[in-house]
């Protein structure tokens, strides 16, 4: 089992700490949903975990070794990233984009070979998007692009996935498809940390929850224990009912129902 952990992390930009006192660990085979209102620092947390943003203090360890001691390809072979927004200035094909995921496995001057192509096709197949293979990425819908980016992360064959709002800007159906996919990946023993704006996603994934609030990691624990009407009121400032659908229903889980 592998582990990505943060010890006494202070994250943000020089002269402006956004998060402090962060202690956290992510293991393979589990999902952690990060909740928090807009601007709470979820993306800052993720960028720090990826080594894109240097921590102001504290340390981030991957399998016990500080992440700054890993070189880029080594790190990328273990940790994949699914970003929030994206812009692609050139019309690459879907296949090319998925092959980008293989970069960490290539030599310094390498380009993808036959094995990489076969693997990329398998990833497309796994997500049921083989039909998009030769399409131009920039011409796909938001949902299709998101699936392609997930396929790219799978081609990377990481042990951990950092997903920054993977369901944002997706329609209702695509959101559920992504959540199902995330559950399937966890069952394949990936460790997933995912920012989301919907507390329901945490119930759907039976996830561990980390609530980022007022510059701290305020609460952590199992979704069923942590997500309550009081806490949602405190974090989001709106009244929400948390109800069980009951043992006999097909969806035996808690749901959040905001009062309007």
């Amino acid at each position, binding site marked *: 089992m592998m582990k990505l952990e943060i010890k006494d992390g202070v994250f943000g930009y020089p002269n402006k700490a956004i998060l402090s006192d962060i202690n956290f660990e992510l293991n393979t085979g589990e999902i952690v949903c990060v909740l928090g209102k807009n601007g709470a620092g979820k993306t800052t947390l993720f960028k720090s975990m990826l080594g894109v943003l240097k921590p102001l203090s504290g340390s981030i360890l991957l399998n016990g070794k500080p992440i700054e001691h890993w070189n880029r390809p080594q*790190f990328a072979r273990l940790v994949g990233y699914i970003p929030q927004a994206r812009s692609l200035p*050139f019309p*690459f094909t879907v296949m*090319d984009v998925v092959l980008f995921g293989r*970069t*960490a496995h290539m030599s310094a001057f390498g380009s993808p070979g036959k094995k990489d192509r076969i693997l990329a096709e398998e990833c497309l197949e796994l997500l049921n998007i083989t039909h998009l293979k030769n399409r131009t990425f920039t011409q796909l819908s938001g949902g299709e692009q998101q699936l392609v980016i997930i396929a790219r992360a799978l081609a990377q064959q990481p042990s951990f996935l*950092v997903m920054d709002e993977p369901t944002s800007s997706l329609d209702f159906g695509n959101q559920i498809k992504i959540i199902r996919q995330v559950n399937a990946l966890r069952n394949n023993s990936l460790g997933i940390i995912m920012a989301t704006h919907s507390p329901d996603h945490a119930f759907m994934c039976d996830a561990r929850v980390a609530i980022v609030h007022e510059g701290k990691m305020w609460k952590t624990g199992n979704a069923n224990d942590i997500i309550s009407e009081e806490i949602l009121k405190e974090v989001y400032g709106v009244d929400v009912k948390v109800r069980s659908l009951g043992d006999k229903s097909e969806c035996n889980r808690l749901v959040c129902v905001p009062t309007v």
Partner: protein
Amino acid sequence: MLIASVLFSACLGRYPLSVSDLLRYLFSGQSIDAALPTVLLNVRLPRIVGAVIVGGVLAIAGAAYQGLFRNPMVSPDILGVSSGAGFGASLAITLSFSLLGIQLMAFSFGLLSVFLALFVSRIIGKNHDKILMLVLSGMVTGAIFNALISLMKYIADSDTKLPDITFWLMGSLSSITFDELKVVLPLVLLGTVPIFLLGWKLNVLSFGDEEAKALGVNTGRLRVIVICCASLITASVVCIAGLIGWVGLIVPHFARFLVGPNHKYLLPASFFSGSIFMLLVDDVARSATSLEIPLGILISLIGAPLFLVFLSKSTKKSW
């Protein structure tokens, strides 16, 4: 196509030569006229080889810069290499340096300008968007060197030096010799080979720095290597051919239109398209009228409308 263009260009000029005569000479060594070898080897061939190299590698440098800055509107001048080289050459001309001196000055000031831009962006751009800072620094160094070029023109002797400066700034392939090409070619190769090898990484960079890092690319190192190589290429050819704009901007567009954005195919396609474009434009420059038309003028006259054509086509393909 490149070979056809080369043959066609070799036949073109004041001294008439048919393709069949040329081929007969090339394959059997028999020439119909004693002047043929001289015309071909000393006058036309250096210029043709020069056009192929200059056009081709400027297009490669342009494609590399466009990939690096994730922007199809970028040209090799973006970090001020041309302005720097232009100033170096004007200064050298004003100080009555030899031809070699002018070329050396153009080359070193071209590179100096890029390093200055890199250096400035490092200092002021610590916590900002690195690419934006780099582009802005390049604009600033470019503007300074452009002002210095104007200063040189202003103080240069208007009978002797000023025409030389103006002529140099307009670019020309007319004075290229094999000896110059022998010096420039290794420098150009030194810049081109790493860019070709790093083609895949340039692809990955199009998703932006953070994603490229997360995909395992050391983006800082990649950027410095590609900038150094592309600037070396540009400075090397500018110092023998003068300022030649547009090629580095439009040719990669055209090549992307032909083969798509993957640098593995885009870079070679840019080279060949750039070579052919440059050869044909230079053919027009030297043969259209009895007086040679400066290359820079012609490229802009032909290149700018062509660019519009590609642009209107490209909106349908959304790049």
